[in-house]
């Protein structure tokens, strides 16, 4: 079984993320499934950044504890990562910047001779990597051709010299997968939203969803998509309210701190029934916490944010493909059921890079809101489903009235007890309708061996690592993708027959386990991680075997 891990490290600001991505693309074109993790502190230049690209002949979505190749753009990369190296780890390093046992690449000399600027140093190292790994240079040419927009010739020249300078130490055969489109989670969410009919995206930058803003702002350069970055998150969500009220499918993106500022208007969506979608990227908290590291600590906050009670959709995709598919569905469901929706992700998923697989672009229902003929339009008409026909201004002859107060069917404020009850009941029925829609969409994913004695229960970005561990240990995995409305029946069914349920979560309190307990599902034991770093495969295996 092929399974290769490549660590690419260097100073922040030196393009480590791009270099790691090129490594991924090379291995992608070689016919492997890849996964890339990007680790960086909160600073712009000078600190240490690294990526780990893993390539295998099966789907992977997590790192292993050791790497096979280290591509060192500086000395730190060698010194800081000794614990990640094994006996046969090959170190390829820029010999002008580091010394090590391994293959030195005289980057500076090569650049000088090729009259190339210093930024092309990474191309030289990538070339050396390809040479050492036995990747045909034609693949380097293919990858550079699509991935390097400027100075292709010169970059290739430099890469060829790096390639030539390397001794072949590995013999990677061609694999049989892909090639896939490699996407970050943010990009996958963006594409999913676009598939779901996104008209507008509004956001204020915040790790780990800033790159979704950047991605969609790029799309908006060439396409009729409205992308706005306003003065703060309060403005973000209120602009979204305005856009959606007037008929544009709108999403916003943020992280915990920014979401806090949105909660008041999130609750407003509960009452005024304006469909909103929030992409919410978790990171290590509380408060500013570790802004560039991961966590799964905001589940219950998302389930309950905002005063008052109202139905909401919370989906927590587990990998790139689910992220794309469920972002599309979230936008579509928010509009069908006129509820606020949260796409709950985290730094691991947002900034990890992996192949987009089948199922990323599900068919979506047409939403048409039949408006009863005759008489004036009433925005909040009471219906059996709890869902009122939604029109947007202009509606000839009618006023469309949205209202944050308790209101009557026409949207006029009321303080009457009976109307308050009827409108609350309408909201509850809308929640039922939403649950009904969810039921049809397989809200609980299962994999691994049916009938296995141990079931790993997980949510969000721990899915791939759980899948791999379950594969290795012959366990089963159950993942509720939808967390609100809670698919209790499906989850119970998926878990039926489980002898031992082990919840795997990247938080301290066991938030999914809490949610299960509330719904009458008992988790037997938990494995938790709280240091801001995602589980490595062997780490999770060890931790599970300790308790299971």
């Amino acid at each position, binding site marked *: 079984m092929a399974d290769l891990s490549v660590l690419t490290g260097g100073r922040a600001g030196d393009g480590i993320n791009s270099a790691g991505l090129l490594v991924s693309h090379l291995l*992608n074109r070689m016919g492997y499934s890849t996964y890339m993790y990007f680790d960086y502190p909160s600073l712009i230049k000078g600190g240490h950044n690294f990526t780990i690209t893993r390539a295998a002949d099966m789907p992977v979505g997590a790192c292993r504890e050791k790497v096979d190749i280290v591509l060192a753009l500086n000395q730190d990369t060698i010194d800081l990562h000794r614990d990640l190296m094994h006996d046969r780890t090959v170190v390829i390093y820029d010999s002008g910047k580091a010394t090590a046992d391994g293959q030195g690449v005289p980057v500076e000399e090569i650049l000088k001779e090729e009259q190339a600027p210093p930024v092309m140093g990474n191309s030289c190292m990538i070339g050396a990597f390809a040479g050492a790994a036995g990747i045909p240079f034609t693949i380097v040419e293919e990858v550079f051709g699509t991935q390097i927009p400027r100075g292709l010739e010169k970059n290739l020249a430099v890469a060829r010299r790096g390639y030539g300078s390397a001794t072949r130490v590995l013999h990677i055969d061609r694999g049989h997968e892909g*090639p*896939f*489109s*490699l*996407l970050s989670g943010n*990009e996958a969410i963006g*594409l999913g939203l*676009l*598939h779901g*009919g996104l*008209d*507008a995206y509004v956001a204020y930058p915040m790790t780990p969803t800033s790159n979704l803003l950047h991605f969609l702002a790029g*799309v*908006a350069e060439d*396409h*009729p*998509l*409205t992308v*706005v970055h*306003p*003065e*703060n998150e*309060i*403005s*973000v969500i*209120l*602009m*979204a*309210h*305005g*856009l*959606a*009220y*007037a*008929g*544009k499918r*709108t999403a916003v993106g943020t992280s915990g701190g920014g979401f806090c500022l949105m909660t*008041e*208007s999130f609750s*407003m969506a509960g009452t*005024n029934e304006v469909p909103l979608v929030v992409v919410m990227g978790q990171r290590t908290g509380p408060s500013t916490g570790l802004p560039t590291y991961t966590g799964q600590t905001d589940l219950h906050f998302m389930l309950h944010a905002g005063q008052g009670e109202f139905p909401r959709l919370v989906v927590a995709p587990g990998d790139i493909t689910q992220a794309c598919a469920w972002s599309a569905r979230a936008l579509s469901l928010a509009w069908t059921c006129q509820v606020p929706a949260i796409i709950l992700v985290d730094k691991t998923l947002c900034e990890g890079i992996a192949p*987009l697989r089948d199922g990323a672009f599900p068919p979506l229902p047409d939403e048409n809101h039949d408006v009863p003929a005759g008489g004036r339009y009433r925005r909040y008409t009471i219906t059996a489903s709890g869902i009122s026909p939604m029109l*947007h*201004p*202009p*509606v*000839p*002859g009618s*006023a*469309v*009235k*949205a*209202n*944050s*107060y308790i*209101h009557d069917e026409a*949207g*006029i*404020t009321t303080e009457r007890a009976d109307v308050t009850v009827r409108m609350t009941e309408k909201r509850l029925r809308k929640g039922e309708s939403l649950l009904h829609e969810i039921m049809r969409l397989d809200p609980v994913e299962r994999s691994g061996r049916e009938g296995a004695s141990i079931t790993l229960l997980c949510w969000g970005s721990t899915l791939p690592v759980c899948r791999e561990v379950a594969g290795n240990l012959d366990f089963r995995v159950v993942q509720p993708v939808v967390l609100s409305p809670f698919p209790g029946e499906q989850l119970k069914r998926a878990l039926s027959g489980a002898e031992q349920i082990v919840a795997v979560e990247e938080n301290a309190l066991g938030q999914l386990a809490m949610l299960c307990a509330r719904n009458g599902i008992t988790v037997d034991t938990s494995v938790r991680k709280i240091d801001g770093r995602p589980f490595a495969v062997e780490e999770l295996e060890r931790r599970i075997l300790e308790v299971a």
Partner: protein
Amino acid sequence: MAERTLITGTQNTWCPGCGNFTIQFALRNAIQKLADEGVPLETIVLVTGIGCHAKMADYLDINSFYSIHGRTIPVATGIKLANPELTVLCCAGDGDAYAEGLDHLVFAAKRNSDITVIVHNNRVYGLTTGQYTPTSPLGFRGRSTPGGTIEPPFNPLSLMLTSGAGFIARGTTRRMKELEDLISRGLRYRGFAFIDVLQICASYFNVGELYDRQGYALSGHDPADFEAACRKAEEWDYNRDAPIGFGLFYRQEKPVFEEQFDHRRLTAADREDMIRAILAAKR
């Protein structure tokens, strides 16, 4: 549309003598005039905050978005962005627009969002029973400041001038005809139109007499002259007794925010092509 009146049947709960009635009439007339000129009524959208002023959303029979306290302006910008064919205006309170959500006001002016903001500046939080606001005079005794405030007011007109607003006016509920005219002009202005309305609060700040005594209609003032507008705005600092000018202080055309977006709709096919192209580049 002929059969639609502009007033809903909702029971009105403003206090007797409240200046909001005047604003309501002025606004209704201004809207009626737009309609008479051929602007379809259903293309007019009102956004309100929370406060006495905000009840306008219930009382006027036009599209409305009854928002939360302090948050009219970004909603209005969103609506205009979604559909530039709509005429979008806000009825905001002074607590609303000058305290809770001041930043939005500054930014809407800065980006020249094509909306009209009418601030019902009664210089008090009406609906929460009479606390001071950013435009209450120094020493104002409200329920949160029984000994009198220790903060002087700021001057919203000056603030709007430095923020880049292209249409800046002040009216009062003591001069309804002029107010109606200012609102009409604001609604027609392409860009961010700001109208501070010195509104009587019959219950908590009933200073109609002051506005009558000190007030005068601007005349001979050139609204195209920024410096003159600054000086004129500074004439009264919302605190001490001084002449209070009513009328249009400043007017200038500027590039409009919402006009700089691509408002075409993507067809489903375009959309899928776009996605395919992006995916191809990532392979």
